[in-house]
């Protein structure tokens, strides 16, 4: 094999393991999912699904689960915005002001991930409980009325409200926002900021014109890593929410595991995936990273 041929083949060989993995464990299941979503089941508990190319399952998914889809994107979107608002300054401080504590601070961001996701979420239900510390603090500070008017609490309660679900999502996915932003901030050459200052940029202008644009790839990656799993999540809505805050993940879980309706569940999963892809495409067009990365 000539060096030239080998050079041409190398990228493909490198792609092979990942490609195989993707084909077997992502594309093949996806294909099955698609087929099941276009099939009708032969009896409620039957495992026989007849491929009929019937789009009725999609009709059910779209007409009966509108509110759950809406809440998934609303809560996922809010959690992403909140995680960005909390995560960006945090990443900024760690990257530029962390000094010798940088690794420690970064470690602290990651530490919660060592505990099970489920345990952390259930722990929040104790923290937000009616007799819990947060509700106690709120009433001690006399903030009850304010939070009530901001729709954060409901009759003085925090647990089982939309705010608790969004809060749980924000908390759980925050590290996935912080880490990519940190990485892109950390790579910024300090000399660029110095140059901006030398050219009479105020600190704010230097941030806006130099740091922010250079960190956008991190923001882009972080918001996708937060939004996609948050919108598809069902754990937070299950443990921190109420019957009025269920998200599409809860409905898909219900259809799969309780109603045994794999067809409708698959159709819902596909609709969710489709909407996500469209949103991500629009987002990457708008804030695309091609010229920034």
């Amino acid at each position, binding site marked *: 094999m000539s060096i030239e041929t080998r050079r041409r083949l190398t990228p493909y060989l490198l792609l092979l393991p990942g490609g195989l993995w993707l084909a*077997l464990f992502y594309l093949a*299941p996806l294909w099955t*999912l698609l087929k099941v979503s276009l099939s009708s089941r032969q009896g409620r508990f039957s495992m026989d699904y007849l491929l009929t190319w019937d789009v009725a399952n999609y009709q059910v998914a779209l007409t009966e689960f509108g509110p759950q889809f809406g809440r998934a994107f609303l809560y996922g979107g809010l959690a992403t915005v909140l995680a960005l608002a909390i995560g960006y300054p945090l990443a900024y401080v760690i990257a530029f002001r962390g000094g010798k504590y940088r690794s420690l601070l970064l470690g602290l961001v990651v530490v919660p991930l060592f505990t099970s996701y489920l345990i952390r979420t259930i722990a929040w*239900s104790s923290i937000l409980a009616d*007799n819990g510390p947060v509700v106690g603090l709120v009433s001690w500070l006399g903030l009850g009325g304010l939070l009530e008017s901001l729709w954060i609490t409901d009759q003085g309660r925090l647990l*089982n409200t939309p705010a608790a679900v969004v809060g749980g999502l924000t908390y759980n996915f925050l590290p996935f926002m912080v880490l990519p932003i940190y990485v892109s901030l950390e790579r910024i050459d300090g000399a660029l900021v110095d140059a901006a200052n030398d050219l009479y940029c105020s600190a704010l202008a230097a941030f806006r014109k130099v740091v922010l644009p250079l960190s956008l790839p991190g923001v882009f990656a972080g918001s996708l890593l937060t939004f996609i799993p948050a919108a598809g999540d069902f754990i937070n809505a299950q443990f921190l929410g*109420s019957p*009025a805050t269920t998200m599409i993940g809860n409905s898909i879980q219900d259809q*799969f595991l*309780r109603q045994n309706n794999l067809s409708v569940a698959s159709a819902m999963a596909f609709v969710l995936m489709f909407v996500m892809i469209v949103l991500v495409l629009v987002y990457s067009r708008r804030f695309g990273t091609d010229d920034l990365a």
Partner: protein
Amino acid sequence: MIRAGRGLTRRQFAARAGAIGLGALSWPILPGCGAEPDDPNRLFVENWPAYIDPTTDDWQGSVDRFRKVTGIDLRYSETVNENQEYFARIQPRLGTGRTIEADIIVVTYWLAARLIRLGWVDPLPIEQVPNAANLEAGLRNPNWDPEGRFGLPWQSVIVGIGYNRAATGFDLGSVDDLFDPRLKGRIGMQTEMHDTIGLLALGLGIDPESLSSFAQAAPAFEQLSRAKRDGQIRAFTGNDYLDDLATGNFAACVAWAGDVAQLAKDNPDVRFLIPEEGGLRAVDAMIMPKGARHRQAAARWMDFVYDPAQAARIASAAQTYTPVVGAQAELARFAPALAADPLMFPDGVTKARLKTFANLAEDVEQQFDEAFSRIIGA
């Protein structure tokens, strides 16, 4: 979602295993297909958590006692957490004519009824279980297994109302009290449809035992739907309702007697009530999945747990309503307080106030499940 999706994919993958050479990777460890001889010294039981007396420093639990007495290598696994999800787990195999590993599984009566209806169970070796004679009358031919061939009761659970006196500020008496405006936003309901709808039906004067159509139960669904819309209901929960009840997040909720009894030990404000309109009796039953291999050992296990002395030990740990007559006298020897507990050993009057949800036809059950699912918001 991911679990079920994988289950199905795995099955379909397996069918094409030759083509993609993936069979060995993705196929779960295969239990024998009935061809293997019935090894009398092996047994696999799947049950709910905390449903048997465990081995402690100074006590040998039932599982270990059974192993010692019989020499049978019993694998006892507490893997049934929720009926619906457990069903979704076994469906891909039993639904395609293959067996599962467990020889005995303990599921709630309505799921047992469904499995019997689907033909996914084997008849029990009842003739080899002489101690079945110790069972309470009426449990041998229940509505979920009229011929009494497929299921035997493990324990019964009384479904009623649990409430936190400190949170309610008053004592509850009827199902209707769950809809008291003073408790707005602090009521919990079970995600278990039969328990929630059954109890509400009782409250509305509808007999859950004689339900045969959706229309008969419709008022209970309407009541539930209205209560959810009005914000009366805080959440629908499974086993996790106990924390909410203990902390007072739930002032009151649909509850299981044994659980509340355990909770009340630490928190005297927590109480259990069989409402004045009556309560429900939910039986968890032992059944053998179709093709289960260890029939002899299974019979010995059933015979063992129906011995009143053993049944007393199991009931003392689970604090549930044992199906075994004679267990009360045995229990009185080492735990007189429990033996006198009216929720573990209800008297005749109380028993008469307990109803068991009807065995619904498949299409009717589907209507119930779907309507319920829409209400709980999933």
